[in-house]
């Protein structure tokens, strides 16, 4: 008994020693630490971008910047930061997860105040099929055919999955799904028929990819960048671009409260700026992310006459056929009223998704 108490005392003091030394190491003015809280899929991109930024920052300021990176599902990450995980920068999969931090009082600046509306990368909701496309899936309408098994993550647990549902509904709503009339009624019916073919609603987008890679399902609804990630990981499937789909926009923002508390605002802002450089965007593109879209809205603080010149971030040659094909009809979440409205009309307990699921079970 006594021996174990003594042992734990020793261990405890050792632990104290370790933590105190690591704190004092961070105090050195020549080096700072930035904490990045990101969602899981762009990890491969950040792993390559961060060393570039470190070199850039060292050159600019002589300061050494080390990174603490955390990768979690977007919703979980956002809640973690809101709950006290002191990240200086957040890179999340949807706007609403940043809005949560604004509402929590952690982000106090107008984070969407740049030419790209605060978005750092974009992607499209696409369809993955088995190699050679054995079920001959060409567009959304094929997903509602009898006997086709579809996988998509659960919009209740995965914010990202909500993109998929809106993409399918929106394509039909805009009259791009054969056999369904444009408008609310046709779109709802398409959603019902589609959900009727969904056999597994995995908790997250990545889980869905994993289930698909074990051989379950004919079609996986997922993002363009997930296709590239899967290919890079050695999975085999083909990508099908539907004729109409939604543009996924991924936000990035400095978390004011924490960045100020850590005294790293300058570096944090520089890092966010750095993500918009051609070098960083080329890395995003190599991982399958499309660049953010230039916004027509004028930027605060600048005269309409001297509007800052927005730079197209498309890496050279990326728009040519192979990498990022052009899709006929691309819409955004704003076309459906933005995330707040979509959350209420689609994903509440009695929303369109819940109604469609209930009808699909009949």
């Amino acid at each position, binding site marked *: 008994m006594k021996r174990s108490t003594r042992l734990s005392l020793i261990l405890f003091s050792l632990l104290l020693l370790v933590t105190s030394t690591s704190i004092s190491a961070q105090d050195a003015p020549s080096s700072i630490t930035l904490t990045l809280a990101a969602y899981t899929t762009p990890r491969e991109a950040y792993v390559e971008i961060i060393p570039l930024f470190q070199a850039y920052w060292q050159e600019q300021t002589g300061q050494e910047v080390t990174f603490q990176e955390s990768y979690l599902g977007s*919703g979980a990450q956002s809640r973690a930061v809101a709950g006290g995980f002191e990240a200086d920068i957040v890179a999340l999969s949807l706007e609403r997860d940043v809005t949560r931090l604004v509402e929590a009082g952690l982000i106090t600046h107008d984070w969407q105040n740049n030419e790209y509306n605060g978005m750092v990368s974009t992607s499209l909701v696409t369809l993955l099929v088995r190699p050679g496309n054995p079920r001959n899936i060409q567009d959304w309408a094929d997903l509602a055919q009898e006997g086709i098994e579809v996988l998509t993550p*659960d919009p*209740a*647990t995965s914010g990202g999955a909500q993109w998929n549902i809106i993409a399918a509904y929106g394509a039909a709503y805009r009259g791009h799904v054969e056999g369904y009339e444009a408008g609310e009624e046709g779109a709802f019916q398409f959603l019902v028929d589609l959900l009727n073919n969904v056999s*597994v*609603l995995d908790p997250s987008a990545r889980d869905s990819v994993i289930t698909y890679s074990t051989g379950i399902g004919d079609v996986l609804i997922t993002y363009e960048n997930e296709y590239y990630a899967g290919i890079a990981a050695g999975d085999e499937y083909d990508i099908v671009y539907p004729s109409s789909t939604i543009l996924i926009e991924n936000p990035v923002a400095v978390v004011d409260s924490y960045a100020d508390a850590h005294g790293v605002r300058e570096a944090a802002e520089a890092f966010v700026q750095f993500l918009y450089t051609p070098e960083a965007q080329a890395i995003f593109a190599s991982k399958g992310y499309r660049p953010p879209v230039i916004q027509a809205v004028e930027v605060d603080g600048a005269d309409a006459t001297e509007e800052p010149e927005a730079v197209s971030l498309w890496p050279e040659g990326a728009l040519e056929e192979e990498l990022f094909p052009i899709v006929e009809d691309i819409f955004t979440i704003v076309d459906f009223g933005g995330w707040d409205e979509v959350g209420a009309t689609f994903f509440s307990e009695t929303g369109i998704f*819940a109604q469609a*699921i209930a009808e699909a079970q009949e």
Partner: protein
Amino acid sequence: MAEAALRAGKETQPNPQVSFGAWGLRAMALTYLLVLIAAPILIIAFEGLRHGWDIFWNSVSQPVAASAIWLSVWTAALMAVINTVMGTLTAYVLVHYRFPGKRLLDTVIDLPFAIPTLVTGVMLVLLYGPQTIIGGFFQQTFGLRILFAPPGIVLALMFISYPFVIRAVQPVLAKLDLNQEEAAHTLGASGWTTFRRIVLPAILSAMITGGMLSFARALGEFGSLAIVAGNIPLRTQVATVYIYGQVEGGNLPAASAVSLVMLLIALVTTLAADWLMRRRTHA
């Protein structure tokens, strides 16, 4: 772990000597229990009912929630029945027969408690998925889908709560007076009659206790079911996955309401198991 707890519960005698130290010990144990177990349970009960009876009832009776609760309850109940029968058989074999590898087998039985349940889910997908030999066979021959359907849920629950019945029945069987069995034999009773008249009455309450504990444990299973159940609302979504979805979606009242219902079912089950255990020790 459960085995140790079960044994300890039966064998320790309260010390009649009351001293200051014993009071301190008691206070410590009770505080620990209060902080660790009672407080979280109370807060769930409070959260679940805080918004009023109407919201509670609406959250729970809503079709998706109600079907999730029902699916959890019936799959767990079916599993408990299967595991009670098979677990008793296994315990009987382990106590009464000698065979090579018995020691190893006896250790392996506890593994389901140690394996992360997410891993359990992955193992089951690799073994019974529609694209595997076993899963494909069932699908083609009987048109029966194992995974992403209720059979997969029952299978996962059987795995994760496998040790309960065995570890409840095994010590009782081991202590059972062999003379009675032998006497029954010499008097001409068949093996089955001996089991039914002599062994079964002695181990019945241990069987039921084990079964109920496994039922309560299965109600709360999440990790493996998130992978193998399929999670389609109204069809293959269990209560825990539904609760997770509500938490993720920021709908805490609904999550707490359904949690409270699950908690009450588990509470009633454990109380019943406890009562049976007491009856057994007094008998």
